[in-house]
């Protein structure tokens, strides 16, 4: 069987107990398709903060896997052979933060090439926020302050915008970029949703939280069109800890109403067509 090259792009995820986050951790372990998979966090995009690494180790330490983090800022204290270490993983998880910094640092260390190799070798690549957008041709980053168009590594076709409804300014910039042709059509990924790509095809979208969706965004006669994709709802029996802001709920409701008018056209992504 040919190696499946897979990327799971997440719109927003953390290693904590907020609704949906546990279910996504479960999904990652399941997708690894290996007994006691080795999962490696690259927290580069946020400068390798200790607290993120601790949360990651705790979350995946509770599951049947071997978690590890590689800090490019601490290679002096913890020297590793980056290529050997990364190619030895079952899953590589790229954390969120600054997309501009992420790319600059990966390129400075030559990690971008190693990660392409990992992807080609069939290691499951996961990423959230900046760590998700970086795999596409482009995305919307707030690395420079105001949301702006940024190029990614272009492993996956099209574009992506994360935190889709929770950051309305970012979403508006994405819509404008797509309508103006600055970005290829792409996906709007809400927090606790994800898009699984096999090779370079969208195989499935998932949602781990009530009401959270993945939107397909395309250009349509000078403006942008958002279409909600059918997402597989991930089940999670754990009690979540949540705080949803009122303005996000309202925006979600508006979009849901708009989407329901087009529900007839709602379709499944990729090969499920």
């Amino acid at each position, binding site marked *: 069987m040919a190696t499946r090259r897979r990327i799971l792009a997440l719109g927003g995820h953390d290693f904590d107990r907020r609704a949906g986050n546990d279910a996504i951790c479960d999904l990652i372990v399941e997708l690894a398709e290996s007994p006691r998979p080795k999962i490696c966090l690259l927290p580069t995009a946020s400068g390798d903060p200790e607290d993120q690494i601790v949360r990651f180790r705790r979350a995946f330490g509770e599951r049947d896997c071997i978690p590890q983090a590689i800090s490019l800022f601490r*290679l002096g204290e913890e020297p590793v052979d980056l290529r050997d270490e990364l190619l030895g993983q079952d899953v590589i998880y790229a954390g969120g933060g600054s997309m501009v910094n992420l790319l600059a640092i990966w390129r400075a260390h030559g990690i971008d090439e190693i990660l392409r190799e990992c992807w080609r070798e069939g290691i499951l690549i996961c990423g959230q926020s900046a760590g998700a957008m970086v795999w596409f041709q482009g995305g919307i980053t707030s690395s420079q302050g105001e949301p702006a168009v940024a190029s990614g590594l272009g492993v996956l076709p099209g574009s992506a915008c994360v935190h889709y409804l929770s950051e309305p300014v970012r979403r508006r910039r994405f819509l404008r970029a797509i309508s103006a042709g600055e970005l290829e059509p792409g996906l709007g990924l809400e927090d606790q949703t994800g898009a699984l790509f096999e090779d370079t095809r969208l195989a499935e979208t998932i949602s781990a939280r009530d009401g959270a969706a993945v939107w397909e965004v395309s250009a349509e006669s000078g403006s942008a069109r958002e279409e909600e994709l059918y997402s597989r709802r991930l089940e999670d029996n754990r009690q979540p800890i949540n705080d949803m802001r009122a303005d996000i709920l309202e925006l979600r409701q508006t979009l849901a109403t708009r989407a329901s008018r087009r529900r007839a056209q709602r379709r499944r992504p990729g090969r499920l067509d």
Partner: protein
Amino acid sequence: MQALRQVVAFGGGGFSQESGNPLLDDYVLGLTGTANPRICFLPTASGDADHYIVRFYNAFRERTRPSHVSLFRRERGVPDIRSHLLAQDVIYVGGGSLISLLGVWRAHGIDSMLREAYEAGVILCGLSAGSLCWFAEAVSGYHDEVNRVPGLGFLRHSNAVHYCDGDRRGAFHRHLLDGMPSGFAAEDGAALRFVGDELVEVVASRPEARAYKLERRGSQVLETRLATRYLGAETPSEIMRGCAAGATRLMPVRQAAA
């Protein structure tokens, strides 16, 4: 009048590594000639580590107007980084990963802003990666091997920091013989003050801290210990000892690598 272009390159030390010993930091502040200097911290090489930023403010709050620029959280920082940097008396660069530091600076265009600030007379200083970055080439021990990394090149020399361990000395000598430009190395607690490309003074926050000038002489490396002024000297004998003239050692390749 053209502004003085100044870099103070620490081999190690300052608030990052010498808690309770402010001698090197005070020395830099003294160079500004201002009572309440504006000092901006760039913690990029550490990934903008929170604890590092807090320590910076604790160290400088009382005698300066401190600020910092975070390139990992720009949405919350100063909107116009260039004007902010140009308005400083001192730009202080923290330690960490030199390769990550340079990558991020270039992505945000900070390298050219720093060049402008340097030419406008803002004093640039830093330790470890924050020292290496100013030179044409750095002997960086931050990764599994001691590597030769091109820096910003504000100074045409090469540089090594934490010059106490044998690996770095051996690597510096090897790289010099491979054609790296001649340069300077500083131990923890020693700082090199440059005006333009010229080394004008070596100071130290510890009596024993030393710095060296390194150059290639044929197939050998000439390592000269530099006269150093101990900033904490109180007695005449301490002052004399601190100023002792440098000893010169010619080191053949084999010995150099030992």
